């Protein structure tokens, strides 16, 4: 992820935090014209949610790739009888967690949910997601400006995305 920053790949946190934020924003605009400003904290990441591949969605969301971590605890069923409602919970022992995202590799759009964890909020989220078929569930945790992930395969008996 070094070199060849094309504007899209600019890490959002760098944009948000950097003293040179104005300069960076400027670069992004030059490179991409009317591209949406990724610096806007509460802007809905539309493009990331449209990606078919989980890697593409993660890159669009966070501007970097994740490394595997055993400091993320992913609670997911081995077998989900109903793919329309799969309970997934995540907690992490990483410090300075700022975001947690849930992806299902085999769903039509991989990204399911992305949560922002402000300072003072626990790095722990539970929610219910849809799974089209048996797939890896991927959880990405942003902590201390770095990106970590873990995954688990969940077998789905009845898919939750129709078709």
């Amino acid at each position, binding site marked *: 992820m070094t070199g060849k920053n094309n504007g899209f790949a600019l890490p959002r946190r760098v944009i948000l935090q950097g003293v040179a934020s104005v300069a960076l924003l400027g670069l992004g605009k030059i490179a991409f014209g009317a591209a949406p400003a990724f610096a806007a904290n*509460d802007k809905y990441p539309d493009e990331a949610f449209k990606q078919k591949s989980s890697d593409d969605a993660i890159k669009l969301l966070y501007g970097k790739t994740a490394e595997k971590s055993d400091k993320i605890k992913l609670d997911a069923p081995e077998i989900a009888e109903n793919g*329309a409602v799969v309970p997934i919970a995540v907690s992490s022992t990483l410090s300075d967690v700022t975001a947690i995202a849930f992806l*299902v590799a085999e769903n039509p759009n991989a990204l399911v949910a992305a*949560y922002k964890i*402000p300072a*003072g909020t626990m790095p722990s989220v539970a*929610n219910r997601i*849809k799974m089209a078929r048996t797939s890896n569930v991927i959880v990405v945790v942003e902590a201390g400006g770095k990106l970590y992930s873990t995954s688990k395969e969940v077998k789905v008996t009845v898919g939750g995305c129709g078709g």
Partner: protein
Amino acid sequence: MASTIRVRATSSGETTEVQALIQHPMDSGFIKDAKGETIPPHFIQQLTFEYDGKVVFAADWGGGVSKDPYVKFAFKGGKKGDDLKVSWVDSKGKTDTTTAKIL
């Protein structure tokens, strides 16, 4: 007016645990109805929890979140009797907001 949002926030003294359940179809746009026609996408995109004027939790959701979504998290602080504000906006621009007392 009945709210689409049911929220339960419980303070343990040091932390406040929040559970929310929202009534929403969360149509992904990938499902066909009985006639074989695609049900257009309609899902909550953003959900925000505010306490004491600050955002304590924010969600960006896609169509892959289950119908009538549920979410649970916890934050440090939060006093019994204080307000927790919850609001969402969906892909059609509809919104709802509620304020719950921390128990």
